[in-house]
């Protein structure tokens, strides 16, 4: 039985105070909190196993390597990849995306097309713009509608034999919209394009099955899944990963080096140059265990309940408007209150110990679409409670009173 009070005991940070008030943490879409079970794994790693991996004959190095490779297998199992060498451990979603974008430099030519969506995190649009500059490929954008959903008709019209790559996030960070990725993958494959899905926002809520999706690349960050910062993953189909050239040169990624020629290591090491964040990787595995122990069905049911509750309570505040009203969305509420600047609301909420995100959420095109400078974003996790949502609602009312 899921008992949120028990779950909360796993997260030491949830009992701290901010500005003299109990912390209400609603910035989960930016980064999730870390349970003691994961913190313990990091401490245990440095206490008992710390060594460099993949290169030592000594016991510590072998034990550390085993732990790291076990973590890779946990990621593989979680995402249901066919092989563990299809899982590249990276420093996060951004790194994973750049790795793929860089790899495509050598595969694209002038006139090829890359399709991205209007709902992207803009730091993720940049690698594609850079790729287009390098190769002469053209960037096309799937537009969105008022509800914050991608318009599939327009997507279909953008697809052609020139389409080489489609990049879409599984779930929008600014609005919480769940995009129809299965459909997008199927359609893109019909024209022979590869698909990269940014699962950074999806993985805290959904367990993706990369084989069932038949996706070519899927990326995520550990720090949004109760894991540590600076760690993430790239799943790529074996055939694709073999096709892409290495991203960075360095130790670990080579088989043989002479000054004339270097032969690269096989997968996954070809893409893992240098000493990785070993403790972080091991802790990523522990985080995956932690959330699977709770179970994604349980998490989804509980978070949807929080979302419905918060949506109803917030909408009861006069003048409050929610952006991102798709029926398919996760527990993210982006809103504005009359003409009050989101920054002002966020500042008052912070004084009340309530952590929300304000601003454009690195999704300026979405804000431009709605003609707003930004929103206040509250994002809920399975360790949040209805009482915390009540505190948010009271906080927003207080902000409204003070600011208008």
């Amino acid at each position: 039985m899921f008992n949120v009070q028990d779950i909360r005991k796993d997260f030491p940070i949830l009992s701290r105070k901010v500005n003299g008030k109990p912390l209400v943490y609603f910035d989960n879409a930016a980064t999730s909190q870390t349970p003691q079970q994961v913190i313990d794994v990091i401490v245990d790693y440095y206490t008992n196993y710390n060594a460099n991996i993949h290169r030592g004959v000594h016991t510590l190095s072998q034990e550390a390597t085993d732990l790291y490779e076990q973590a890779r297998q946990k990621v593989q199992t979680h995402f249901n990849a066919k092989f563990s060498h299809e899982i590249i451990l990276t420093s996060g979603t951004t790194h994973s995306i750049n790795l793929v974008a860089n790899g495509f430099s050598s595969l694209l030519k002038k006139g090829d097309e890359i399709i991205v969506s209007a709902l992207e995190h803009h730091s993720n649009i940049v690698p594609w713009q850079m790729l287009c500059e390098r190769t002469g490929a053209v960037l096309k954008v799937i537009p969105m509608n008022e509800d914050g959903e991608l318009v599939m008709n327009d997507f279909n019209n953008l697809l052609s034999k020139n389409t080489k790559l489609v990049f879409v996030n599984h779930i929008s960070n600014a609005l919480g919209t769940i995009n129809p990725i299965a459909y997008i993958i199927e359609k893109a494959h019909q024209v022979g394009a590869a698909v990269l899905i940014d699962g950074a926002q999806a993985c805290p809520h959904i367990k993706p099955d990369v084989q069932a999706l038949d996706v070519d690349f899927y990326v995520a960050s550990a720090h949004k899944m109760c894991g540590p910062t600076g760690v993430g993953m790239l799943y790529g189909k074996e055939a694709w990963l073999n096709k892409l050239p290495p991203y960075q040169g360095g130790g670990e990624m080579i088989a043989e080096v002479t000054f004339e020629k270097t032969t690269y290591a096989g997968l996954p090491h070809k893409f893992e140059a240098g000493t990785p964040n070993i403790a972080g990787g091991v802790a990523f595995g522990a985080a995956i265990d932690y959330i699977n122990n709770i179970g994604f069905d349980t998490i989804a049911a509980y978070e949807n309940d929080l979302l419905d509750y918060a949506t109803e309570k917030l909408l009861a505040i006069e003048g409050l408007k929610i952006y991102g009203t798709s029926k398919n969305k996760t527990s993210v509420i982006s809103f504005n209150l009359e003409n009050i600047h989101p920054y002002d609301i966020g500042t008052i909420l912070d004084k009340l110990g309530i952590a929300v995100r304000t601003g454009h959420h690195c999704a300026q095109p979405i804000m431009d679409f709605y003609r707003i400078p930004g929103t206040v974003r509250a994002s809920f996790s399975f360790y949040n409670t209805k009482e915390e949502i009540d505190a948010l609602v009271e906080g927003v009312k207080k902000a409204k009173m003070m600011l208008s």
Partner: protein
Amino acid sequence: MTIEDIQNEIIDEFSMFDDWEERYQYMIDLGKDLPLIDDQYKTESNIIKGCQSKVWVHAEMKGDKITFTADSDAIITKGIIAILIRAFSDQHPKDIIDANTDFIDKIGLKEHLSPTRANGLVSMVKQLKMYAIAYQTQLN
């Protein structure tokens, strides 16, 4: 009055407040009341790009003193701007260059001038000083 006198006056005013709510309400009211900048100066080139709230600053030399006007689209930011402008405007460039902003700490608003705060105020203070340096060079 010198910048320091004005700062002490502001510290006195804020010492009357018991809690953050009163301080913030006062600041919000300052922000609301003051028409801080002439619309013609709310130009793209006068914008200080903080991550979240926009801040505009305009400087003019009147005699041997600088007059600052400024604005923001966020009201709390605007309230602090009103306080900063009150301390720094109509002063000699040299005094502006030498002045510090510790008083913001003393009135319990330190967090707003933290370099990690994405509200543009830190850049605004820098900009005020840059203007002062530029005008000071002219005077010399």
